[in-house]
């Protein structure tokens, strides 16, 4: 706080009000961003974080309040206004042209010109690549400006996005869940770049994330939103992680992880010697009924590939799969579902739900055999079950006919869960079950997993969140390079133990 007291704010939002039909999304919110600080915006899903950012970016027009950028009052009538004032927005999804190289992407629309007449001209290629290299070097991003963006890793693409934001005199960057797609080590690279930019270039950052530990390390100040109201702005160094989370949810942290019931004796899933190319090198494991087997490891260790192979999404070269002791062959997901294996993808938006379709129809999709008789749909039953599951899982939506794309992330995940609960599978494979979901939503996802256990379902949980693996598994398998490195029992390992095995320390 002392550090920023003598500086003029980059962005000041006063008394921002935004109403939607039937809801007040923002009710007089104040927010100030100083140069050279990382200001974390914290709140549960639906607290108003995204709405506030969208008001600032010009995606929404606000219904009240004043916005000042670098001391000057502005009316944000279109997305162009904040851009011209030096604000840049980086969203969760990568927003680059994959077929162009780094330099081209960085200077897209603002290319240095050789000759110019009106809006036409010739791109000065030497200056383009020269300046791109210069900027990359200045921000300590070690990448070749000629590299094609589509061939970069997600972390590197994120860096390019940041570099692009900064080539055009940006004074403030808004990062919305920037690390959700990144793995641990890459996050540190990103944080280093952010740290340098704020110290050496006095860039201000607005940072939104559900990774509380991470924002606690990275942030300077935090503004907490609760139900569309400002619940206070604090220096992060003055708060412990627990205090910060308590303030956000407005009370004591309820116990996030439920107690797991003891598994049954009978096995739900057994796979033997599963192989696929060089991504899966002979994996064998067993999941009992009512048991969660956590599978963790670094990105690229083979977690997702394992899940996809078992469920029949990808073909396996060799290996055997048994469901409840019966040998099954799943060459397609359709066969997987028929044999009682559900696979919940990590990417809800593109692989989990048909966003243009209603909750009801998404719900019915994997259970359509059960919900039809002789090829004829049983509409009444579909309606009834969809309603039932919406109530059971507390999906917040006006009706079962609401489109899946209009729901928040947490509610979308609940619809995905409802959909697969309805399919009544005996094995459920969760791939990153709580990615991008806030605390309250997580607790609900875990509660539902517990219900599945009580019904005798075997759960294979693929996760890169070690805490989740420790708290929500009966046993934990650590993968490395497509093979099982070690299996732990519940309560045995610490996060460090898992990490050590995952990165292959001591090999």
């Amino acid at each position, binding site marked *: 706080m002392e550090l920023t007291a003598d500086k003029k704010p980059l962005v000041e939002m006063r008394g921002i009000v935004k109403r939607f039909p039937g809801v007040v999304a923002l009710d007089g919110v104040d927010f100030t961003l100083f140069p050279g600080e990382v200001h974390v915006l914290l709140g549960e899903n639906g607290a108003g974080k995204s709405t506030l950012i969208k008001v600032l970016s010009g995606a929404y027009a606000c219904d009240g309040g004043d916005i000042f950028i670098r001391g000057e009052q502005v009316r944000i009538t279109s997305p162009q206004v904040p851009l011209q004032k030096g604000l840049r927005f980086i969203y969760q999804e990568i927003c680059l042209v994959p077929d162009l190289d780094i330099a081209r992407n960085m200077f897209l629309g603002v290319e240095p010109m050789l000759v110019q007449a009106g809006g036409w001209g010739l791109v000065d290629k030497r200056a383009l690549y020269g300046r791109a290299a210069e900027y990359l070097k200045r921000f300590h991003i070690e990448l070749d400006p000629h590299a094609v963006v589509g061939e970069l890793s997600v972390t590197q693409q994120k860096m390019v996005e940041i570099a692009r934001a900064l080539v055009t005199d940006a004074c403030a960057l808004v990062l919305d869940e920037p690390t959700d797609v990144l793995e641990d080590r890459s996050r540190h690279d990103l944080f280093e770049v952010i740290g340098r930019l704020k110290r050496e270039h006095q860039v201000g950052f607005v940072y939104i994330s559900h990774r509380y530990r991470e924002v606690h390390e990275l942030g300077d100040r935090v503004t907490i939103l609760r139900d569309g109201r400002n619940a206070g702005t604090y220096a992060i160094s003055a708060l412990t992680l627990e205090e910060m989370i308590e303030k956000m949810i407005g009370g004591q942290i309820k116990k996030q992880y439920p107690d797991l019931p003891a598994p049954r004796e009978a096995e739900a899933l057994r796979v033997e010697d599963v192989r696929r190319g060089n991504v899966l090198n002979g994996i064998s494991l067993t999941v009992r009924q009512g048991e969660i087997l956590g599978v963790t490891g670094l990105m690229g260790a083979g977690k997702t590939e394992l899940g996809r192979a078992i469920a029949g999404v990808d073909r396996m070269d060799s290996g055997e799969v048994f469901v409840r002791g019966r040998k099954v062959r799943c060459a*397609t*997901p359709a066969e997987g579902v*028929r044999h009682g294996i559900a*696979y919940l993808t990590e990417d809800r938006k593109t692989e989990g739900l048909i966003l243009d*379709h209603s909750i009801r129809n998404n719900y019915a999709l994997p259970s359509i055999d059960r919900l039809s008789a002789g090829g004829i749909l049983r509409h009444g039953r579909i309606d009834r079950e969809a309603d039932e599951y919406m109530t059971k899982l507390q999906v917040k939506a006006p009706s079962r006919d609401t489109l899946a794309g209009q729901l928040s992330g947490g509610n979308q995940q609940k619809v995905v869960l409802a959909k697969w609960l309805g399919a009544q599978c005996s094995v459920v494979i969760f791939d990153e079950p709580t990615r991008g979901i806030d605390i309250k939503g997580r607790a609900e996802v875990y509660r539902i997993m517990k219900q599945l256990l009580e019904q005798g379902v075997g759960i294979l949980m693929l996760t890169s969140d070690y805490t989740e693996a420790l708290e929500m598994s009966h046993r934990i398998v650590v993968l490395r390079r497509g093979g099982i490195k070690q299996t732990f029992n519940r309560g045995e390992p610490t996060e460090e133990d898992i990490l050590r095995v995952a990165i292959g320390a001591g090999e």
Partner: protein
Amino acid sequence: MSEPGSVLKHFKKGIEAVLGLLLITVVFLILTPSYRQVSNFTQIFAQSAVLAIMATGTTIVLISGGLDLSVGSILALCACVTGRMLAAHDPLWLAVACGAGMGLAVGFVNGTTVVATRVPPFIVTLGMMMIARGAAEMIGKGRDMSMFAPGFSVLGKGWLVPSLIALGVILVSIFLMSMTKLGFNAYAIGGNAEVARLSGVPVNRCRIIYYSIGGLLAGLAGVVETARLDYVEPNFGLGWELQSIAAAVIGGTSLFGGMGGVGRTIIGVLVIRSLYAGLIQCGVDSYWQQVAIGLVIIVAVWIDTVQRRRRT
């Protein structure tokens, strides 16, 4: 933005197209005396019927996220098959079955090729459009195929019989799309094929079926057209694939799949046919007719796009 659901919903969503159709009808009723005659409307129905049969198939393929450019040529091919068999005095039922069956077979080949080769449906069916047209000419070239047995001509008699056949096709298709698993899967596959696949929908098998239905209905349209005109030429159905797509789109079916409805395509067909009939009777020359239809298609989709944007 309809999906399988109650039939009522289908009608409510197609309201803009219905209003457009009424508007066109009223305008021409005022402008041209000849439009007011009963024979004008029976003419429109007769011409709409054949297109409606074909466009129904096109709509199903579009909803499932596919595209079929070959239906116009399939119509011609099937018409030629039927025509030659009739000219050779084969049994009527066999000629009809072979005509429709040929459509089914070509549609099956379309679907199988799309699924097996993963070549975009635009290209596969563009190729098939040429292949089927060539085949139609080989079968029909230089042969006299006209004046068929009266038993056959019944299928195309007046406006009533073709209209009833079209009505039957449409009702069955509405049932298929809104009440059956196969229809439900079409919307799902068109909405997001990967989500559908991961949810256990046999995507490939379904796709082949939708293309087969598209081919079958094009074949049936060919048979009815043959009966209606009482002669066959290999240039039947030229450009009809685009009229079918236009009808579906005017009715509110998405070119990107996942949304739309078979029942509404009939409105699109009537819009196109009423417009042609009216413009002809106003004495507008055929070049300007094309221009007018083109504009209507663009405006229809534009209205739809605007409304869709407002809803989300």
